[in-house]
């Protein structure tokens, strides 16, 4: 290395920023093609109805209209579901509604015109006659014979009935428990709201039969695979998917949606490029939503406060159809996390996946893990109150000890590494816990409602390995690929299957490469988001990019260096085993003067004038890295709030986050992701709520009605880290994109309940809006 500080671990400014701060990013809607047409979708105004007729005659003759297609025209395969559980029912999800509509916003027709204004005008003229049917929107109420049935062959609207853990053993533990706390928890529906709305642009070339699709995707190869193989029925190699700059995803841009399929199909039918960009209202109606669980949860303790069992049953509202990874989220990303950071001898969890007349529900930042964490952390706090114990002490008493790793939980997972005590101790120290409790006592005496909420969480990142995922229902592998191409001049291009939509991979992956090769970052280029350039890729979700995508790059780099060492050994007439590679130089061990620079060795690989016998020229390696396990980041978050019992308003006074995400490539970027994650989780705790009325109308379909966190509602976050490297990947990283969201919702809810404890309030369902808090305070006062 030329500098004393390693690039790996440094807070380096992002290389992608210059284009974004000057307005020169290229998002899908910024792409324009000659002859481009514009699509709008005619969507169902009903939550549940039979389509009696669709008349498009007036639309077709409207000015500027190129074509109108309905479900009768667009005959493709249904949108696939990528995770199948035992006995699951996957009703077909048509690209455009066929015969029936099942949620408000379901696409019924696509109108294509020369301008978006013309398309909108013409869309108004599509005459759809509906016969409305009763709707059901509540996941628990829908799970019944007497509820309106969405599909004839899905009785009680039940898609799956899944469980994990040992029921008999858990029931037994509850019988002999000293204390049981029980709570019904509603984990409300959230609507993702990436600030860039979804968009797609399809361009079919009749001359060659090639289709190029620009799409707001977190995983362009998955988009291509699922669309080509299952929906469009076109050869995979004739389709290219480009996900250029993408303005946030948070899960919502993983999935294959109706619109991108319809637009691709239409481009092929018309032989012209077709673009669609969602309006915010469409994002609300037709992006996959998140969460929406109704849960009965019980935690059993012994006399001394040790947790002896956990029993959970959950109705997971899946929406009207199964979105791409919908079954995975409330099963293997939820039930498996229910041990949290605690030694819990026995757990049983049953989940019913239920279809309702609402937008499909799928992964949203955290995906299953925030639901699990909220549940455990609320119960631990309720337990602390029931046992009259300090919530920090109760947590410490139940932490999995540091010497028990790898740790087998009763719900399938084997945690890779962990050391939970120091993270909580650090957070307690940062917040000044003891002093804070004293202040709280004082505040209470003067009628002030000050609350301190703790959340000690675990997350599971980078679902793996593929063989295990496959045995649990995954219809895809969960590895990642990386092609490292060293050019003759020593410059390096890395083609990664991970996708950056805010994560900063162009910086962090370049740090990883430059650090490992001992070359300046300027010599490294990271390419992502294009199936035409990258061998294959599973994309970015589940905080997997560093752990899986980064490791794939690392594995390729080792192979590059191995070949380099062979060439250097040959040129230096030394044994390969004696060659060391350091600071961008191959040298003979013990004689640093006998050396070949990186550039010399690389050039020789391409000149091929003097290579070891039998060696192929060139210097390029593609690796497919399949991790041996998930990684398990953890940490402790503490929120301090003041609640005004008169107005129900919550003010966040402090927010402390100590996260352990393993080794850190760029601390500035990790801090940034933690900040954003916290805001997202605080949003769920206090404000965000996707509400359908009983008729299935979405009442929160604009940013006027759905409250996203704003700058003046949030504090400066106090962040710190402990570092427990992951032993499951070669670079020791865990994952940081979702930790904040997973931890903060529970910390906030616990803080508010702690603030309201003297008033006799034990639980309020989220979001903890002023009106709900005010009502709970009034109700508690009447008791």
């Amino acid at each position, binding site marked *: 290395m030329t500098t004393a500080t390693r690039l790996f671990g440094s807070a380096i400014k992002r290389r992608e*920023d210059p284009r974004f701060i*000057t307005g020169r990013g290229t998002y899908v809607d910024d792409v324009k093609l000659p002859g481009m047409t514009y699509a709008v979708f005619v969507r169902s105004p009903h939550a549940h109805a039979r389509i009696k007729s669709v008349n498009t005659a007036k639309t077709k003759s409207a000015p500027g209209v190129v074509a109108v297609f309905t479900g009768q025209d667009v005959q493709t395969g249904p949108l696939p579901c990528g995770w199948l559980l035992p006995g699951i029912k996957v009703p077909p999800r048509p690209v455009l509604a066929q015969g029936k509509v099942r949620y408000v916003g379901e696409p019924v027709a696509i109108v294509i015109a020369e301008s978006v204004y013309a398309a909108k005008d013409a869309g108004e003229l599509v005459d759809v006659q509906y016969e409305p049917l009763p709707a059901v929107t509540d996941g628990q109420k829908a799970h019944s014979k007497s509820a309106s049935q969405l599909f004839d062959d899905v009785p009680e609207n039940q898609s799956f009935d899944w469980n994990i853990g040992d029921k008999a053993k858990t029931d037994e533990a509850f019988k002999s428990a000293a204390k049981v706390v029980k709570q019904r928890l509603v984990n409300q529906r959230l609507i993702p709201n990436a*600030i860039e709305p979804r968009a797609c642009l399809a361009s079919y070339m009749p001359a060659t039969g090639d289709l190029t699709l620009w799409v707001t995707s977190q995983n362009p190869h998955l988009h291509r695979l699922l669309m080509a193989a299952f929906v469009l029925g076109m050869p995979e190699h004739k389709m290219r998917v480009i996900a250029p700059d993408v*303005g946030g995803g948070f899960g919502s841009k993983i999935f294959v949606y109706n619109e991108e399929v319809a637009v691709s199909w239409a481009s092929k039918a018309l032989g012209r490029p077709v673009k669609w960009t969602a309006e915010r209202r469409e994002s609300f109606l037709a992006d996959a939503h998140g969460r929406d669980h109704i849960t009965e949860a019980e935690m059993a303790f012994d006399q001394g406060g040790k947790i002896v069992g956990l029993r959970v049953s959950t109705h997971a509202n899946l929406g009207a159809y199964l979105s791409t990874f919908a079954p995975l989220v409330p099963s293997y990303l939820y039930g498996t996390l229910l041990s949290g950071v605690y030694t819990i001898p026995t757990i049983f969890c049953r989940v019913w996946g239920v279809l309702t007349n609402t937008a499909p529900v799928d992964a949203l930042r955290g995906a299953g893990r925030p639901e699990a964490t909220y549940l455990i952390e609320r119960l631990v706090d309720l337990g602390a109150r029931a046992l009259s114990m300090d919530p920090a002490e109760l947590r410490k008493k139940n932490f999995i000890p540091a010497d028990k790793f790898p740790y087998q939980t009763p719900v399938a997972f084997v945690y890779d590494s962990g050391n939970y005590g120091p993270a909580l101790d650090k957070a307690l120290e940062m917040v000044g816990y003891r002093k804070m409790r004293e202040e709280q006592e004082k505040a209470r005496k003067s009628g002030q409602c000050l609350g301190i909420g703790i959340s000690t969480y675990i997350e599971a990142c980078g679902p793996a390995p593929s063989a295990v995922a496959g045995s649990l229902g995954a219809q895809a592998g969960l590895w990642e690929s990386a092609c490292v191409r060293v050019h003759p001049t020593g410059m390096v291009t890395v083609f990664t299957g991970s996708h950056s939509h805010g994560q900063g991979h162009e910086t962090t992956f370049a740090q990883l490469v430059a650090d490992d090769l001992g070359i300046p970052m300027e010599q490294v280029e990271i390419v992502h988001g294009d199936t035409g350039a990258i061998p294959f890729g599973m994309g970015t979700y589940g905080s997997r990019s560093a752990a899986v995508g980064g490791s794939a790059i690392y594995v390729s780099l080792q192979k590059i260096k191995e070949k380099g060492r062979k060439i250097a050994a040959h040129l230096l007439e030394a044994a390969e085993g004696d060659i060391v590679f350091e600071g961008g130089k191959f040298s003979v061990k013990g004689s640093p003067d006998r050396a070949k620079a990186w550039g010399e060795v690389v050039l020789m690989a391409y000149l091929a004038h003097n290579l070891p016998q039998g060696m192929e020229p060139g210097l390029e390696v593609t690796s497919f890295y399949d991790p041996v396990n998930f990684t398990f980041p953890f940490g402790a978050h503490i929120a301090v709030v003041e609640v005004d019992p008169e107005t129900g308003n919550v003010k966040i006074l402090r927010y402390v986050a100590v996260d352990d995400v393993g080794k850190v490539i760029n601390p500035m970027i990790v801090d*940034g992701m933690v*900040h*954003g994650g916290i805001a997202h989780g605080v949003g769920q705790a206090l404000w965000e709520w996707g509400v359908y009325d009983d008729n299935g109308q979405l009442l929160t379909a604009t940013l006027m009605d759905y409250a996203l966190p704003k700058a003046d509602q949030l504090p400066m976050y106090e962040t710190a880290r402990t570092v427990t490297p992951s032993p499951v990947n070669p670079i020791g990283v865990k994952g940081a994109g979702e930790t904040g969201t997973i931890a903060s919702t529970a910390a906030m809810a616990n803080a508010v309940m702690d603030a309201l404890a003297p008033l006799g309030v034990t639980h309020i369902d989220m979001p903890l809006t002023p009106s709900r808090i005010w009502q709970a305070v009034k109700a508690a006062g009447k008791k």
Partner: protein
Amino acid sequence: MKRQIKVTINGVGYSHEVEPRLLLVHYIREVVGLTGTHIGCDTSQCGACTIMLNGMAVKCCTMLAVQADGAEILTIEGLAKDGQLHPIQEGFWEKHGLQCGYCTPGMILAAYQMLQRSPNPSEAEIRHNLDGNLCRCTGYHNIVKSIQYAAQKMAGR
């Protein structure tokens, strides 16, 4: 019934015949071809489309192009001068005030007006003034820091 409008954007004069209903943001993005101004919500809540129009920060997704006839407009593309980043742009880069970059142009222009009106804002003022701009990535922490950095830099500190 198209109407002729003339505007100056980032110092360059433009003249086009437009439909009266054409939104200013569509004019800037589609007709003039400056795509740095983004559309996030169509209803003036998210602020991704914030531009400076005759010295005022406006959300151009809810303004018609014909209403901007004769106006002087500054978009994100016009902020850097002679390849030199504006201190606010520099602040966002230095302090990691962006992740996906989509809200960033609007944030920067909202900050531009904020610092014109109040060159040395407190943290609370900054947060209050960002009320009309939504970011889903940063949790606002580093956006506040970015604007504080710019304020200091612009004050020559």
